[in-house]
């Protein structure tokens, strides 16, 4: 599974680092470091992290239902907030 985090949106809530610590780690106070290639056994943690991100900054493929952004999040992304 591949993932990318929109670090413009990321505000360092660290929900992802809590839910999928093998994929996401905090580096310093609020920087996020992540491995963009995720092993199969991390699927559940990744799915939870994608769902839990308060600013919906994580895009992953290979997760059922997570690869397609909703119309709303796509519109938001196009405005770059």
């Amino acid at each position: 599974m591949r993932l990318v985090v929109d670090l413009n949106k990321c505000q360092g809530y660290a929900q992802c680092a809590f839910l999928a610590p093998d994929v996401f780690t905090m580096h310093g106070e609020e920087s996020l470091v992540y491995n963009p290639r995720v092993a199969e056994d991390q699927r559940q943690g990744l799915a939870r992290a994608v769902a839990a991100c308060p600013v919906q900054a994580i895009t992953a493929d290979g997760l059922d239902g997570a690869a397609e952004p909703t119309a709303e999040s796509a519109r938001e992304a196009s405005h770059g907030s």
Partner: protein
Amino acid sequence: MEADHVDRLRHEGRIVIVGASLAGLRAAETLRAEGFTGSLTMIGDEPYEPYDRPPLSKAVLLGKASPHHTELPHRREIDATWRLGVAATGLDLTAKRVRLADGDEVEYDRVLIATGVRARPWPKEAEAGLDGVFVLRTRDDATALYQRLKSGPRRVFVIGAGFAGSEIASACREMGIAVTVAERAGAPLVGALGGTIGAVAAELQLENGVDLRTRVTVTELEGDSVGRVRAVHLSDESVIEADVVVVSLGSLYNTEWLNGSGLGAGPRGVACDAGCRAFDFRGIVTDDVFVAGDVARSPHPLFGYQFLALEHWGNAVAQAETAAHNMISAGAERRPHMWMPAFWSSQFGVNIKSVGVPPMGDQLMVTQGSLAERRFIAVYGHRGRMVAAVSFDNTRWLEFYQRQIERGAPFPVEFPTMDRRPEGRKPVAADFPDPSLPTHGPTVTLSGFSPTDRQLVFTPAHH
């Protein structure tokens, strides 16, 4: 009639995207998401499918991600013909064809230019070719540099303290590798954030054990008898032994392939209107040629209609989406690309983010926190208006300032904020270098001026 044409284009058109990176991929996805059912061709000079670059100078160098595995997730199927590993070499606007390095030609009805930028190489070719001299831009660059850092060099020398150079230095220190950074300006990050904030970045480097040399230039890379780099000579006549040199002097626009095409393309990128339509060399907007991402330079109403070229991740995404939308839309349905510039960096454990256009600011105020603590928000002002804000480890406040910038909030900043210190109540100089002096590493290239500025005199050519 235009509506008919666009309708046909939507269903049977041929769209070619030159540049298979972040902007190219997101444009392709947007075309399909908005109902484009014609043929789509993706052309990329690297043999890889679109991958993400920010991790290459961060997680990859720290060994936390593999340089081979930063491919971007797809938001949807794009059903494209991929021409990877072959560069575009020319554009024929009349015949509507893209020429490729392998001699092939691809016909289009509409084309999107998303060829981005590349690392500026060390100018002396023989020295650049020494073993141990690197740049960092592509996946292959990252693979090669990571291998070398892993083998335990005695000292790494980084030329240029922009964002990439500083991130590389940060990664080296984290791995316990001795590192020297040389910068022409008086501090790191000066091109992007100015000298006042640069001074904070300098402290950060020094405290983390970087041997930081400012106000110097590199005069020579010295090799040994078997062609490996062994030392770096500086303009202050010091000589520093190093077995790895990373050249981090900003980037060059990938526009050479457009020479002779008749497009308004050159060393400052490809100029386009707010709807991502490229200008030809006469300054007339084209109908079928669009541009997005790092290579594009477009006017922004919020910043005096200056042409901005933004090497920002979020800009590549947003501009690609707008360009794709406009490529298959008629007149009034088209929308302008009016993205708020924003970028981030992570170095020495500090999260640096910015919104707006800092290099436009001549003064700044620290509206929250303090520079001494390296946890703050600084607001940049220009002509009585807020034009940018930068945060060090204070991300969550940035959106508030973004709204202020969008509204053209006044500067000096008068509103009360949490954690406002006495030092932040008076504007100080932002301390950007004179823009006419060569520098590198700004993430925003400002060009052109508002007519009221009268900083340029236009002299027409004589026939």
